[in-house]
C-alpha cells in the first residue's frame, strides 16, 4: 500500500513537472506564431532566431476556420497569425486583433506594394490591422495531354467529356464561387435564391467530379490522377514545375483575388517581438527565400528583381500581368447567418 502511495506521488510529480516545464518558457524572450502549414521556409525562422535572439514557438493550422476557435477561446495566446482576407475582417469584427504600429514596420512600409494595401481595404478598411504576406487568384489547372479544348471559362467544369476527371475545392466559399461567377454574380452574393441556384448547379455537376479536395490537389494533378482542377495560383506554379504537361488559366468570368496577411492578436503578450517578426518577413532577402519555398505570389515589390531562378522569375503565374487581377473581387465576411447559409448549401451538395 505504501509503495502504491509513493508511486502515485511520483506520478503526480511527473505531471506537475510536465506542466511547469511548459510554463518556464514564458520567462524567455519568446514569440508565438500560428501560421498555415508549410507557409514559411523553416530556414527563415532560424535566421530570425539567430538575428534577434527571440525564440519562436511555431504552430500551424490547415484552415482559417480551424484556427478561429482556438484564438477565440484563448486556448493559447498566439502573438502573430496569418489569416486570409475575410477571416481578418471577422476577427476585427469580433475584436480579436490589435492595431499595428507601422513605425515599427519600416520594411513593410517600404517594400509591400501599395496596391495590395489598397486591395486590403476590402477587409481592413483603414489598413490598421494587417500586412499582406501572400496573395493569389483561384483558377483552373489542366493537363494539356488530356484536355484538348481551349480552357478559358469555368464552364468547362460542367463538360460531360471530363466525367470523373474534375477536382473541385472542398470549402463552401470556394466551391460556390465557381457557379456564382458563371452566372455573372458577385462571389460575395447574399441573395439566397441566387445561392440556391448556384448550389443546384453544383449538385448537377457532382456526378462529373472525381473528388472535392483541399491541398491534396497538388499530389493528384502531379501524378496525373485528374485532368482539370480548381486550384490556388501558388499551387498551380508548384504543379507546373513538377508536371510540365499542365497549364494554368484564370477564367474570363472572374475569380477570387485573395490575400493572406500578418496580424497581431488582441491578447498577444509579445507585441514588440511580433512587430519585429512581421517586419523581418517583409525584408526583401527573406521574402525571396520564402517565395522560392512557397511559390505563392508575394506582395513584396523587391522580390521579382532579386529572384535568381528563371522558372520563378518569368512565371506568369507568380508575377501575372496586372490585368489579371484588376477588378477581381476579394472575399468579405458576410456575417454569421450568411456564413451558415453558405455552409448549409455546400452540405446539401455533399450529401446528394
Amino acid at each position, binding site marked *: *500500500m*505504501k*509503495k*502504491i502511495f509513493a*508511486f*502515485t506521488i511520483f*506520478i503526480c510529480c*511527473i*505531471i*506537475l513537472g*510536465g*506542466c511547469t*516545464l*511548459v*510554463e518556464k518558457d514564458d520567462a524567455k524572450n519568446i514569440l*508565438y506564431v*500560428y501560421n498555415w*502549414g*508549410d507557409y514559411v521556409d*523553416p530556414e527563415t525562422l532560424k535566421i530570425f532566431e539567430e538575428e534577434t535572439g527571440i525564440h519562436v*514557438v*511555431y*504552430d*500551424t*493550422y*490547415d484552415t482559417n476556420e480551424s484556427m478561429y476557435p482556438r484564438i477565440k*477561446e*484563448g*486556448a*493559447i495566446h*498566439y502573438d502573430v497569425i496569418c489569416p486570409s482576407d475575410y477571416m481578418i475582417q471577422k476577427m476585427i469584427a469580433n475584436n480579436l486583433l490589435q492595431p499595428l504600429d507601422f513605425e515599427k514596420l519600416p520594411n513593410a512600409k517600404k517594400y509591400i506594394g501599395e496596391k495590395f494595401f489598397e486591395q486590403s481595404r476590402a477587409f481592413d478598411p483603414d489598413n490598421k490591422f494587417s500586412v499582406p504576406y501572400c496573395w493569389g487568384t483561384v483558377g483552373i489547372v489542366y493537363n494539356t495531354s488530356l484536355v484538348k479544348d481551349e480552357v478559358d471559362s469555368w464552364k468547362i467544369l460542367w463538360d460531360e467529356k471530363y466525367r470523373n476527371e474534375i477536382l473541385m475545392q472542398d470549402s463552401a466559399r470556394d466551391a460556390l464561387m465557381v457557379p456564382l461567377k458563371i452566372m455573372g454574380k458577385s462571389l460575395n452574393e447574399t441573395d439566397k435564391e441566387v445561392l440556391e441556384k448556384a448550389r443546384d448547379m453544383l449538385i448537377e455537376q457532382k456526378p462529373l467530379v472525381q473528388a472535392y479536395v*483541399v*491541398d*491534396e490537389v*497538388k*499530389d493528384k494533378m*502531379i*501524378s496525373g*490522377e485528374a485532368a482539370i482542377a480548381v486550384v490556388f495560383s501558388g499551387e498551380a506554379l508548384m504543379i507546373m514545375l*513538377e508536371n510540365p504537361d499542365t497549364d494554368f488559366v484564370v477564367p474570363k468570368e472572374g475569380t477570387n483575388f485573395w490575400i493572406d496577411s500578418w496580424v497581431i492578436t488582441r491578447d498577444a503578450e509579445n507585441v514588440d517581438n511580433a512587430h519585429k517578426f512581421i517586419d523581418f518577413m517583409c525584408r526583401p532577402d527573406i521574402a525571396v527565400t520564402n517565395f522560392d519555398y512557397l511559390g505563392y505570389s508575394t506582395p513584396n515589390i523587391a522580390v521579382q528583381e532579386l529572384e535568381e531562378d528563371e522558372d520563378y522569375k518569368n512565371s506568369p503565374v507568380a508575377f501575372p500581368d496586372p490585368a489579371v487581377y484588376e477588378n477581381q473581387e476579394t472575399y468579405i465576411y458576410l456575417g454569421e447567418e450568411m456564413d451558415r447559409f453558405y455552409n448549409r448549401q455546400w452540405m446539401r451538395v455533399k450529401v446528394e
Partner: protein
Amino acid sequence: MAKLKTIYLAIIFLFLYAPIGVLIAQSFNESRYRGNWTGFTLKWYESLFENEDILNALSNTISIGFFSALIATIFALITCLALREVGKKWRAMFMSAANVPILNADIVTGISLMLLFLGLGMKLGYGSILLAHVVFNVPYVMLCIMPQLIALDKSFYEAALDLGASPFKAFTSVVLPELRPSIFAGFLLAFTMSADDFIITYFTRGAGVDTLPTAIYSQLKLGIHPEMYALSTLVFFTILIFVILFAMNRKKI
C-alpha cells in the same frame, strides 16, 4: 482444408500489409509527391535525423504514450480491484461510466476536455495532453484487466492471508502474477491508443507541442513530408523486431 486455411491467412495478411508496403516504398521515393515514383533515394532517412520537429514529436509521442499508459494502468488496476467486490449491477454501471470517453466520438471528447482544462485555468501543453490521454486510456486498460480479475479464484489470496502474509504481500505474490498478462496487454493497448490518437491531442495540446499524429495530421492536406514515411518504416521494423523477440522469449518460458 489446411491449404485453404493457409490461403485465407495469406489473403488477409496481404490485405493488412499492402499499405505498409506502400509506406515503406514511399520512404525510398525520390519525389516529394505521393504516387509519382522518380527514383530510389535514402535522402529522406538522412533529413529525418536532422528534422528537429519530427524528432521532438517522436519523443513527445513516446513519453506521453508511456506515462499515460503507466498512470492509466495503475489507476485501472486499483479501480478494478475495488470493482471486483461491488455488486454486479454497480460494477456494470461503473464500467459503462468508464467507457464513455472511448465510446464518445473523439472530437467530442477532445473538445469537452479542452473546455474543461480551460475552465480549470490550466495552461494547455504537455501536461494537458498527458491528462487527456490518461482519460481515454483508463477504460481500455480496465477492459483488459476486469475479465481476468473476475475469473480469478479468490481462495488463493485468502489462503495466503491465512498463512500470515500481509494483504500487500499476498496481493503482489498471488494476485499480481495471475494478472500480469492482462495488465501487460492493457498497458500495451493504452500505449498504442495514445500513440495513434490525433483528434483529442489536437484539441488539448498547447503551442509548439506536437505528437507524431498531430504532426502528420497537419501535413496531411499539404502533402506528407517523406521523412514521415521514413520514420514509419523505422517504427515498423522496430516493432517487428520487438514482436519477434517477445514471441521467441514467450516460447522459452
